[in-house]
């Protein structure tokens, strides 16, 4: 604990209080107040080794000494307020899920040049991404007509 | 694991090849797919000389025979007379029965017309399309076929220049196929139904022990109006007897061994 406080004071001293506050915000420490997950990740990060950073800025940590096996790799997402698992690019996925011990930076070389598409996170249900509505759904523009009868139309009967 | 499957495949392949090899031979023999069906279409197609609106009646003399035929059957089973009446109508109408004749028969025997159609379509001896004055029926059943009935038919068709069940241009001849007529001992044979003289002069003759050459001669004799000798065409045979006279059963037939005939 003392080392943490020392580190903080050192950083303030180096950067000045304004820059330190800015960094604090950028690193998501402010979000930690409301987001327990992030806070826990931050606490985990203390003493862990940073294995790599992908092109989105997600940081991949590993800690081998006193962590339970199977929980020793994790990611701290680049976006602090809106994050989900689909932000992990495929090259890091294998490392993160213990499929392989090669890090994402090593695996990036395997990425097909000709047809490998850029990784894109999943925006389902948000923004202007395509949302599938079934034929019976009210939001489907071609919603099925469930009327199975033909009503009598009072047009020709003006007698 | 592999060998039974392979054997099956080989067997099936051989089978297919055999079928393929056979088919041209069959069609060359003058018997294409039509051989599988001996009857004509099972439905009626209107034509000027065969439609339900045409009036058709038994002739006056045949009406007497209709009455005579009907008298053979109980009055509540008049429909039993359908087959003889269809035969009579066929003789009167030059060898075939138009649909109006069937309607007339239905009226006479008091049943619905469809019951007469059923009978007429069932029997291949009733022709529902036009035939020649001499309708030549080639037996196509096994004994005759083994003795060369296909060659006979081929010779006939080639000589007359028609297909099966087709009438020659002069309207004299047509060739059809019939199943066994009971002359197997003198195979091959043809039957000639002569419709040229109406129902009074109707004849139905067998010409047996034929050769492709002889059958053409018979046709030519018929064309000239002559009456070829009926029965076996082999001069060395007498009716169903063997060629060159009998070789067995020459003496008195032996009495049955078990009892004494004189003692009775």
């Amino acid at each position: 604990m003392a080392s943490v406080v020392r580190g903080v004071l050192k950083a303030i001293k180096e950067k000045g209080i304004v820059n330190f506050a800015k960094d604090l915000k950028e690193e998501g420490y402010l979000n930690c107040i409301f987001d327990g997950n992030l806070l826990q990740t931050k606490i985990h990060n203390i003493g862990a080794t940073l294995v790599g950073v992908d092109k989105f800025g997600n940081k991949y940590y590993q800690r081998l000494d006193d962590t339970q096996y199977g929980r020793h790799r994790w990611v701290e997402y680049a976006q602090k307020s809106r994050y989900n698992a689909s932000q992990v690019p495929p090259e890091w996925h294998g490392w993160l899920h213990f499929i392989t011990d090669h890090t994402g930076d090593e695996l990036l070389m395997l990425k097909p040049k000709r047809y490998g598409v850029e990784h894109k996170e999943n925006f389902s249900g948000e923004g202007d991404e395509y949302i599938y509505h079934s034929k019976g759904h009210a939001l489907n523009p071609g919603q099925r007509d469930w009327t199975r009868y033909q009503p009598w139309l009072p047009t020709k009967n003006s007698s | 694991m592999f060998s039974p499957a392979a054997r099956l495949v080989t067997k099936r392949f051989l089978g297919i090849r055999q079928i393929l090899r056979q088919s041209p031979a069959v069609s060359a023999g003058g018997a294409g797919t039509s051989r599988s069906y001996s009857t004509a279409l099972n439905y009626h197609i209107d034509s000027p000389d065969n439609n339900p609106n045409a009036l058709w009646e038994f002739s006056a003399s045949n009406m007497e025979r209709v009455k005579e035929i009907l008298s053979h059957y109980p009055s509540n089973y008049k429909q039993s007379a359908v087959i003889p009446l269809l035969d009579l109508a066929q003789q009167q109408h030059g060898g075939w029965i138009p649909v109006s004749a069937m309607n007339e028969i239905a009226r006479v025997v008091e049943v619905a017309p469809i019951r007469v159609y059923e009978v007429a379509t069932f029997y291949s001896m009733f022709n529902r399309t036009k035939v020649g004055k001499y309708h030549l029926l080639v037996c196509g059943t096994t004994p005759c076929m083994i003795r060369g009935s296909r060659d006979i038919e081929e010779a006939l068709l080639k000589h007359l220049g028609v297909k099966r069940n087709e009438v020659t241009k002069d309207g004299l001849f047509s060739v059809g196929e019939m199943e066994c007529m009971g002359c197997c001992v003198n195979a091959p044979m043809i039957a000639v139904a002569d419709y040229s003289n109406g129902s009074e002069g109707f004849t139905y003759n067998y010409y047996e022990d034929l050769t492709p050459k002889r059958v053409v001669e018979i046709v030519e004799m018929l064309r000239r109006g002559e009456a070829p000798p009926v029965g076996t065409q082999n001069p060395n045979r007498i009716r169903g007897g063997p060629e060159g006279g009998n070789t067995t059963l020459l003496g008195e037939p032996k009495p049955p061994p078990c009892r004494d005939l004189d003692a009775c």
Partner: protein
Amino acid sequence: MGFLRALHRARPLIRSNFSTSRVACRWISSTPDRHNPEAAAAAAPAPTPEVRPRTPVGGARIECPNPEDAIEVFVDGYPVKIPKGMTVLQACEVAGVDIPRFCYHSRLSIAGNCRMCLVEVEKSPKPVASCAMPALPGMKIKTNTPVAKKAREGVMEFLLMNHPLDCPICDQGGECDLQDQSMAFGSDRGRFTEMKRSVVDKNLGPLVKTVMTRCIQCTRCVRFASEVAGVQDLGMLGRGSGEEIGTYVEKLMTSELSGNVIDICPVGALTSKPFAFKARNWELKGTESIDVTDAVGSNIRIDSRGPEVMRILPRLNEEINEEWISDKTRFFYDGLKRQRLNDPMIRDHDGRFKPVTWRDALAIVAEVAHQVKPDEIVGIAGQLSDAESMIALKDFLNRMGSNNVLCEGNGSSPQADLRSSFLLNSNIAGLENADLFLIVGSQPRVEAPMVNARIRKTVRATQAKVAYIGPPTDFNYDHEHIGTGPKTLLDIAEGRHPFCSLILSAKNPAIIVGAGLFERKDKDAIAAAIETIVKFGRVNRPDWNGLNVLLLNAAQAAALDLGLVSGPECIRSAKFVYLMGADDVNLDDLPKDAFVLYQGHHGDKGVYRANVIFPSAAFSEKEGTYENTEGCAQWTVPAVPTVGESRDDWKIIRALSEVAGVRLPYDSLKAVRARIGTVAPNLLNVEEREAPTISGELKPEFQQNLSMAPFGVAVDNFYMTDSITRASKIMSQCSSQLSKK
């Protein structure tokens, strides 16, 4: 509810069982009757229970009037007693063994040509076709031996040889006898390597679709057409592998029962043309209901998918329709989907209808109803009305102070006091006991095809004679046309006609009077003349009531029972007319300023004169009681939801009564039925026929002159008789293609 219905259905059965078993006939059943200790004691040497008895197939019961005629056979070692003359197949059914079959049909003659019903009989060298083999005493029948199974497998292989493998596109798929039985007896591969046979499809009209290549030559359709439907059009043409079903000459099947060949065809050769490729039978929900297109009340099953009726099939009822229904009943269902009224509507000042809410519509009608004098209010029930709505209409109008309630088709001042004077008294099934029919002014073939089928059955079975008075029409059985009008009736009544000797010599003469005569001015005089014939010919005896009235509409009998008995002449002075589905009533005499309320489910004739439209539910969407022409009440059950804003008829009337300030005292169907029970309790005894209690002797005398005008035709187009059938496309096709010109 379902339990109650079952109980109702079971009651006469149980009763007859008890009463008959004591007197003359003995119920032959292999197990001692548990309900009846006497019978159990009588059958003392009970069969040794070495083989467990099985329940008979389809509830098959047998009755043997003469115990000496009973023989005992053994089916799979299990002894059954059956009457002499039964076939081996029937014996097996009694023993609870279902024999596979294609050509055998219990209501048709035996053909014995499919060979699927082969069984092994001990000491018989070959398997026996059980449908055509009479059971002999002591016969030992084995149905599940390797011989029988192998024989059936052989037959099945031959049947499948030429049968196309198109089950996925076949409409019979899922209810196909060949499919079902090939599961048990079919091989998973065929040995037939030739080409399959193909047959030209026949055109049998707009109702029956033919795919003749699928035909297995069972000849059920041929036998049905010639034996039941009475049209000798179909036949078996050709022979051998070229055999096919057909008409030989180009001909449509012009029968009013032709749709039944779809049901009896065991494969997909004859299927329904309107239903083709519409649905699969396992997607459908079946609802057991009643047909309302004629007064017979045929039992039907409405097959629906979601909110639409997909098809209509007959339901077995020996008392009414056996297992047939008419083409109209079977194919009018598309009318239920067309021309539907789905919103309450009010006619604007410019003469156009505009949809409004129920609240507004009810308020306007209630206001108008209060502005006219009570006796200027007239209520007319249509021909498809159920008893519940008619009682509600009558109660509502009575509370408004009017008693002008009538049902269309009943004529003026109908005789509703004696039930026997408007019912088919000998019952439809009872017509089979008649040996002489006198049909007066009725064309049963178009008015009630099921009754006609029953008469035809009787004529075929017993050579009963039929005499007919009325305009020339076609019958499908032998009949004698003895006159066209009341003059012939008078001749018979006064004993001058040769028919008199026939009726005197007949044992059970039946007179069938058409309901079309109700509309005649001299109907009472005709009734009196018929009454004279009845007395003179001993038609009405304690053991036989042969005076029958054949009604036209589903609502007629119930309307007369409920007392909707005003005459149609009261609309001359009407200012407010409540048309409850009444389309065929003549509104020419209606004053121009009269207010017309049309309550119905179809935009038909009645709508064009209406000022306000109330949409109501059709018979397939509501629970209703209908009384058929023999006085038997039956229920319809909702099969599909109502369309749009429409509601049940009685609920609309109930709501209107509340808005009008004369609240009717019932809020539920149960309460309405309780109210019906106070007026006509027989309408609550569903599926029971109550014999009329008051004898015809009490009938008042009529002094009226018989007009000499010949009888008219009551139904001029069989296919279009009411608002639903007139909306149906299939029915209009039928009437243009099949009606005799």
